[in-house]
Each structure stands twice: as C-alpha cells, then as structure tokens.
C-alpha cells in the first residue's frame, strides 16, 4: 500500500538502469524518480552520460543498432516498464516528448511543424488541428509573434523562436513527460532567459526532465537535481539541498566549480 501511495507522486521511477553502446557501459545501475509535475535537472561534466540517460526515456537509442538497456523505467500511473522489449518505442514517444539541443524545425511551415505530431497520429480535422496548434504556440509563448505568419517557413524564425517552436511542437500532443536535452546551449542569453521562463511555466502541465551544462540554469529552474559522473548517479535530491549542502564531496566540488 505504501508503494502505491508513493508512486502516485511519481511520474516515473528508474530502477537499476544500465545502458550499453555495444560493449561500452555508458550508464551504471541508476536509481532515480521523476516527481509528477516537477522539474528534474541532470547535471554533470561532459561525457558523464546525462544525455544518454535522458534518451532512454523516449527510447531514442532504439534507432541505432547495438544499443542495449538493462533495468527498468516504470511509467506511472500505468505501472509499465517502458524499456521492456514488448513496449513499442513509438507508443512511448507518443507520451514522452523531447526537445533537442539544437533547434531542429522541419522543412515545413510554422503551422505544419506544430501540427506534425498530431498528423503523425492521424488527426486530420482542421478544427482540432487549428485549436491544438494555437494552444501549443500559446503555451510556448510564441503565438503573438507568429500568429500572422503561420504559413511561413519555420527556418525564417530566429534561433530562440525556432527552439520555442520545437517546444510548441513537443507540447501539441499533450505529452506526460517533456525531455529537454540542453535546450539553451545553442542560444544567446536573452533567448535562454525566455526559454527558462517558459520551462518554469510549463511545470503545472507536464513533468519535465532537463539536461543542462549550466549549473545556474539547474538551480534556477529545477525542483530536483541529479548529479552524474562517468555513467553513475552520484547524488539525487531536492535542488536546494544539492546546491546548499550536498552529501557528497564530489557533487560539492562540481557545483562550486572546483572540478568539471
């Protein structure tokens, strides 16, 4: 009973997750939870496996041969292990969306970019598409800037606008979890600030997991923070705890900039 009550507050639970690129063991025995409608940040030095970890959540590794998962990521309330070979990665990606490091709009209009996920799901009714596209663009704080040129090519937008378009695209299908892979590393400080603000606003609607290189960013936007090093999860706690009094010396060294 305790377990069930506990898992109500969790959106996902990672249990003893290991991941292999061929023979290379990139993630080692990770245990962690994603709290429902909270923002969890993954920090750590380059190559520590944080992006690899993030990409397990939408089974991105299935796209390339030779990759192997071990362990579970339980998705709640379904109580299903999304890493199970019986689970279709497409179904997982329908519910867990992702925003990439570099804005990657499709060679389509602004409207069609946002509508993409809906069209892929077979939705054709114009009224539904119009409504969902508008909502997604409003939630991504882009509607006012693009509402008069929805049929323009997405490439004509600025870098920050393109990234917000990618967020709108990810939001249009009402995902349960939104994954961000260093979403601001290709953007200037002003665009970064607007994306961070947006991410903070989104947490009422969706559970967020964000990889970031930028510790200030983790401190600013997240509720929980996980510090990773060489494929291992060193420390996971509330963001305030991690940044004010981390349990591990290594975490402290990284956060204070003595190492990293």
């Amino acid at each position, binding site marked *: 009973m305790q377990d069930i009550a506990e898992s109500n507050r969790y959106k996902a639970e990672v249990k003893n997750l290991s991941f292999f690129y061929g023979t290379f063991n990139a993630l080692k025995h990770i245990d962690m939870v994603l709290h429902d409608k909270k923002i969890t940040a993954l920090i750590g030095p380059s190559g520590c496996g944080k992006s690899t970890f993030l990409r397990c959540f939408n089974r*991105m590794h299935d796209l390339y041969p030779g990759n192997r998962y071990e362990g579970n990521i339980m998705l709640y309330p379904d109580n299903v292990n999304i890493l199970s070979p019986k689970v279709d990665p497409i179904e997982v990606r329908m519910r867990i969306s992702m925003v990439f490091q570099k804005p990657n709009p499709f*060679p389509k209009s602004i409207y069609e970019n946002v509508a993409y996920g809906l069209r892929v799901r077979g939705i054709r009714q114009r009224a539904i598409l119009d409504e969902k596209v508008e909502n997604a663009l409003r939630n991504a704080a882009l509607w006012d800037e693009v509402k008069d040129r929805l049929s323009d090519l997405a490439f004509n937008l600025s870098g920050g606008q393109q990234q917000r378009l990618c967020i709108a695209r990810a939001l249009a299908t009402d995902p349960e979890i939104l994954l961000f892979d260093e979403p601001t590393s290709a953007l200037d400080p002003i665009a970064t600030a607007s994306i961070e603000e947006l991410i903070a606003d989104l947490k009422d609607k969706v559970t967020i997991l964000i990889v970031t290189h930028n510790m200030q960013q983790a401190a600013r936007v997240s509720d929980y923070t996980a510090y990773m090093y060489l494929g291992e999860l060193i420390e996971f706690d509330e963001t305030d705890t991690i940044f004010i009094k981390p349990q591990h010396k290594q975490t402290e060294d990284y956060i204070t900039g003595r190492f990293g």
Partner: protein
Amino acid sequence: MSKQSSEKTDHVGRLGYSYRRNLHERFIESVLFLSAFLSVIIMLAIIAMLVKESVIFFQHVSIWEFLTDTQWTPLFNDAHYGILPLVTGTLVSSMVALLVALPLGTIIAIYLSEFAPFAVREVAKPFLELLGGIPTVVYGYFALLFVTPLLQLIFPQLPGFNLLSAGLVMGIMIIPYVSSMTEDAMRAVPMHLREGSYAMGATRFQTAVRVVAPAAFSGIAAAYILGISRAVGETMVVAIAAGMQPNLTWNPMEPAATITAYIVQVSLGDLPHGSIGYQTIFAAGLTLLLMTLVFNIIGHIMRKRYREIY
C-alpha cells in the same frame, strides 16, 4: 599624409611579397582556370557548330515548316522536314522510361537511405551501380530480343519494334542514376532532423516521406532532372528497339524514331556531306540540345527555389 610617414610604411623588410612564391601561385591558378574553362569552351564550340550548320538547313527549309509539318521524310523524293514525329518519339519513349525510373529510383533510394541495414546497403549499392555500367547497346538488344517478346505475350498485336519496350528498358537503365543521387541527397539530411521526427512518435516511413524527402528536395529534383536528360538523350536503346521510322504518335505500342536515333541513322548512312538530308541532323541536334537545356533550366530554378535548409 606626410612624406616621412609614407617612407616609414614603405619599408617592409623580410615581410615583403616573395617573387618566386607569387609566380608559382599564378602558374597554378592559370592551370586550374584553363581546366575549368575547357568544358565551357567545348560547350560553346558544340553550340556554335550546331547553330552554324543549322543555319544552312534553315536557308532551305523554313522554321515554320520545320516546327509544324507532321512528316519527317528528308531522305525520300517527296521530302518533308517536320520535326514533330521525332519529338513525339523522343517524348513518348522518355515518358515511359521516366514512369519506370522515377518511382522505382525514388523507392530504392528511400529504402537504401532510411530502411536498409548496413549490410544490405553495402551489397545493393554496387549492384545498382553495375546496372548503370552496362553498355547501352546491350540494353538495346535486351529490349529487342527479350523484353519485346515478353510484352508480346501480353499484347499479341505489339510490333517487333516499339517505343514501349525501348522505354521500359531505358527506364531500368536510368534507375541507378536516379536512385544513387536521390539516396545521396537523403543521406545528407542531418540526423537531428530525423531524430526530431522520431521523437514525435513518427514511424520510419512517416519520417522518410514527411521530413527527410522534403528536406532533400533540391537534391531529389536534381536527380530527376538528370534522369530526364538521360532519357531524352539516350540513343542506342531506342535506335535498336524502337525501329527507325519517324512516326507522329503518342502511342507507345507503335514503332517510332527519336531525335537521337535519327541522328545515328543519318550519320552512319552514306548521305553526301553538305546535302540537305545531311544538314537535317544538325537541326535535329539543335532541337535536342534546346530540349535538354529547358529541362536543365527548370531543374536549376527548382534547386534555387527549394535550396536545402536544415
């Protein structure tokens, strides 16, 4: 500017230009320029030759007659000089070829670029390229002696020489050009665009058709244009398998001559140099050149309009 300061700045010492290095660079540059320019010169020489010889032809035959007469019988006593039968022969055989080559070439490219496992691609690509390396005369006899009899099983009234068989075989011949260039264009689309599509829950096919193909559009258009130019300019297959009788028809089941087949026929014949009959091949050649030029210009415009932006 005072004199003193200009004296100061004129002094360069060991930082001055090296005479030897300059000479060497100039030499290399001119060699590179000449090599690049050679193709332009050859192109201009071909056009000049075609135009000059065609002018002689058009002094005897009006352009109006050339473009509107429905018969092409320059070698008969009752000579007619209407290019239309040759143009329709060229267009019909090309159309048949493209109906084979463009869809199949595109499907093969999508499979190889987006679906095929590494091992399959490594085997399939050399075989495809081999298909493009077979001499066209072999394709010609393949059409005449194998494909036509096969088609006659389905259409018993099909004549021994016909545009359909020639066009089909020509299409097979062009597939590797279309598929190879289309595949290159699709594979050049960066992975992060594909990942973006997969992350939205798209299948491989949806990703290939809705994201990768539009992103590679300009390269695909270039592949199609190359395919069209190959079909229009192909000579041997049609000369062997389509018969060499000029025939104003849109029906691929009939025999007909294409512009290229006619040129071969006359060039190899014993028409006296300088006769009107002989001059016709230049007028026909100029027509062919203009046709391919139009396709290339269309391709160029399309490439510009839909240039690759990732």
